[in-house]
């Protein structure tokens, strides 16, 4: 598979430790022009791109996962390091750009010296020079380049400063390079720790040579010219200075990592994040929602009310709508997470929550994915890739569907509207908050139980560890955050979109066929009534209804019948479909002010078939809420869970355990409430 180096554009790989600004540089160099791929047979992800056309540099650009050293520590790092030496499809890199945080020279030069030992052709891109300047230090790039015999360029991947210089250095290397690319030999880094300590001792000497103590900060702008004059002013204390932590960061952490205030801020930040996910997104969601309803009804008019029109309107357009309706929330979530990450706060949040999460077998690094789960489980599961320990990552993926995602919101809203007296609607917010808290507590308990059974359910022996760098606080660059938000959102759409669309088309078929054109008595009915009746008739004679009737014996013990069963089946496309499907099956016509009110009144009148007994009562509604808290009611999540966990084991466990839990708890609550006479 390896293409000879001459047959393709040169391959440039970006390498760097986490937090060294590697991905920021990659984004700047490639623009939006990249795709994210998995290494063959692994869940380790990398990005492949080209240089933005303004750089007029023809080369393949590969962004590898952040690594601390070339000695891999986890299965994922084994893949990443191996592919660095020789990419499975692209072969060995022609050049490596290694990002080094100038303010953490001694730590980040370890990777540089290992790359050098392996005989790679490298260019050092120095980042975070601004933080170094805040420490009143400068760096002698020429000296550093001499010591490692490579080019060194100062860059700021956020503003693009210095990138042109980097490009011209790369061009120089390529033009002087003989096309027979030098074979990088894999240096044998033995596991001997003395070797590491030796390397660090050498690096410390280099560091002392290249760091310059800035006596006069006013000379900052002319630093490169002033370098030579300043060298005579090197302060022997410069090493100690560079090991000082950024004073501003220490001051902020005194509050944000304070035992009490730290927790207070943490919960305040979380509450704010949550409320903004819901309240900021709400108007946008209703715009998307009404846009797609409009499109749907217009296309019905355009294509007629036959099967084709229905396919376009209710299959394709509604299916697309059900993907896009969550985009506002996902954008806001990524935006907030991006801002929190760019300031440096997210790492602190993970640190604060690590202890409680480790008690239930999770990790502080599970925190961001779980938080994302409250918007949608799909981006949340994708976010678990940052958890290095495989067992903890699998457990996090396992637990994410229990986070109360936004698709449950319309369902809860409808069900709460049913049990709440109309004069006490203020109770709704309170009850909704209780549902959220209940689902958090329930998922913690389930994670704890799974963790206890871990060797039976998730067989992964990995050293559980939490080693996380707390980056210096920085003012976030909105341009970068917005760029990353767009990238993450489009990546979500590309990954989840086709799956969700396919599944919704499949469910459309289940709920429409075989009786696509039902014969109904049209006498004395308006056009709208005929349409609604047709839809209702179609659904109640569909394959989904047949399935519903098959599961009737399962529904009866929890106080429901096949019509609820059909809606539950339809809700596998997306949970909120439960609402529209109930509307269809109970032949709801919008004669009341809102659809929700119409469904509620139709539900109040519904009786168990062939009897006078009411179908929906307080107990069955509470049962349904409990059901939705636990049930793995989302095919797209199952698909993503399979992909990200690398097998069927986790998704099958999720389906079995969550569905069983949902059913048992619903059974207990419905029958318990009835026994208590609270029907």
């Amino acid at each position, binding site marked *: 598979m390896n293409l000879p180096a001459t047959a393709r554009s040169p391959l440039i790989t970006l390498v760097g430790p986490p937090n060294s600004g590697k991905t920021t540089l990659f984004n700047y160099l490639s623009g939006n022009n990249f795709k994210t791929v998995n290494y063959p047979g692994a869940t380790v992800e990398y990005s492949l791109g080209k240089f933005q056309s303004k750089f007029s540099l023809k080369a393949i650009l590969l962004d590898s996962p952040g690594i*601390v*050293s070339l*000695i891999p*520590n986890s299965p994922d790092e084994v893949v990443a390091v191996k592919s660095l030496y020789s990419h499975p499809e692209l072969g060995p890199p022609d050049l490596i750009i290694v990002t080094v945080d100038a*303010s*953490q020279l*001694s*730590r980040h030069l*370890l990777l540089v010296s290992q790359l050098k030992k392996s005989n790679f052709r490298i260019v050092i891109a120095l980042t975070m020079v601004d933080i170094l300047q805040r*420490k009143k230090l400068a760096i002698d790039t020429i000296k550093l380049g001499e010591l490692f015999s490579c080019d060194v360029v100062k860059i700021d991947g956020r503003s693009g400063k210095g990138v042109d210089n980097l490009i011209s250095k790369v061009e120089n290397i390529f033009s002087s390079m003989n096309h027979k690319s030098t074979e990088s030999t894999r240096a044998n880094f033995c*596991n001997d*720790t003395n070797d*590491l*300590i030796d390397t*660090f001792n050498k690096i410390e000497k280099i560091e002392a040579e290249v760091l310059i103590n800035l006596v006069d900060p006013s000379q900052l702008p002319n630093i490169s010219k002033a370098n030579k004059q300043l060298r005579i002013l090197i302060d022997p204390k410069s090493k100690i200075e*560079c*090991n*000082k*932590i950024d004073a501003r*960061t*220490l001051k902020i*952490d005194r509050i944000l*990592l304070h*035992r009490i205030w*730290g*927790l207070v801020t943490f919960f305040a930040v979380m509450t704010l994040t949550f409320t903004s996910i819901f309240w900021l997104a709400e108007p946008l969601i209703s715009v998307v929602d009404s846009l797609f309803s409009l499109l749907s009804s217009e296309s019905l008019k355009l294509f007629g009310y036959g099967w084709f029109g229905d396919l376009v309107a209710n299959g394709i357009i509604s299916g697309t709508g059900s993907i896009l309706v969550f985009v506002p929330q996902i954008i806001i979530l990524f935006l907030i997470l991006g801002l929190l990450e760019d300031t440096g706060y997210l*790492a602190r949040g993970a*640190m*604060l929550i*690590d*202890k409680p999460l*480790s008690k239930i077998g999770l990790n*502080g690094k599970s925190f961001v994915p779980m938080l994302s789960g409250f918007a949608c489980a799909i981006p949340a599961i994708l976010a678990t890739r940052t958890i290095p320990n495989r067992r903890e990552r699998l457990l996090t993926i396992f637990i994410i569907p229990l986070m109360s995602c936004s698709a449950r919101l319309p369902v809860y809203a409808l069900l709460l509207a049913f049990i709440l007296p109309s004069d006490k609607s203020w109770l709704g917010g309170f009850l909704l908050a209780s549902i959220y808290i209940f689902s958090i507590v329930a998922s913690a308990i389930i994670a704890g139980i799974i963790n206890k059974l871990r060797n039976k359910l998730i067989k992964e022996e990995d*050293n559980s*560890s*939490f*080693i*996380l*760098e*707390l*980056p*210096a606080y920085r003012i976030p660059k909105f341009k970068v955050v917005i760029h990353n938000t767009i990238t993450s959102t489009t990546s979500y759409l590309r990954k989840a979109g086709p799956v969700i669309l396919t599944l919704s088309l499949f469910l459309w078929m289940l709920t429409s066929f075989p009786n696509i054109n039902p014969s109904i008595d049209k006498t004395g009915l308006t056009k709208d009534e005929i349409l609604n009746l047709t839809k209702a008739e179609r659904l109640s004679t569909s394959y989904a209804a047949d399935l519903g009737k098959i599961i009737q014996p399962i529904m009866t013990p929890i106080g429901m019948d096949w019509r609820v069963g059909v809606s539950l089946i339809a809700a596998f496309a997306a949970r909120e479909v439960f609402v529209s499907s109930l509307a269809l099956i109970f032949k709801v016509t919008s004669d009341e002010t809102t659809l929700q009110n119409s469904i509620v009144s139709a539900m109040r009148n519904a009786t168990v078939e062939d009897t006078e007994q009411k179908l929906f009562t307080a107990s069955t509604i509470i049962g349904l809420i409990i059901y939705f808290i636990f049930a793995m009611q989302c095919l797209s999540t199952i698909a993503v869970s399979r992909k990200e966990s690398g097998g069927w084991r986790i998704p099958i466990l999720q389906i079995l355990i969550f569905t069983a839990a949902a059913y048992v708890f619903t059974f207990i609550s419905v029958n318990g409430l009835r026994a208590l006479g609270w029907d």
Partner: protein
Amino acid sequence: MKSASQLKLGEKVVIKNIDSSHPSSRRLLEIGFTPGQEIELINSSVFNDPMAFSIRGTLIALRRNEAGCIKVE
């Protein structure tokens, strides 16, 4: 021997060695916790776990258990 997990807030010490039997020991060395380096306990979370140390000009959060394998003078 005293270990980094026993430090008080603001206490500065020099690393003597890293207990190589701990599974995280090599990673700790790789991120800069090498003998001879000065570390300071800057912050610690509720329950004293994880703990944030300053090392080589940055802050690194470690679990108490991992800090335990950093032996100090």
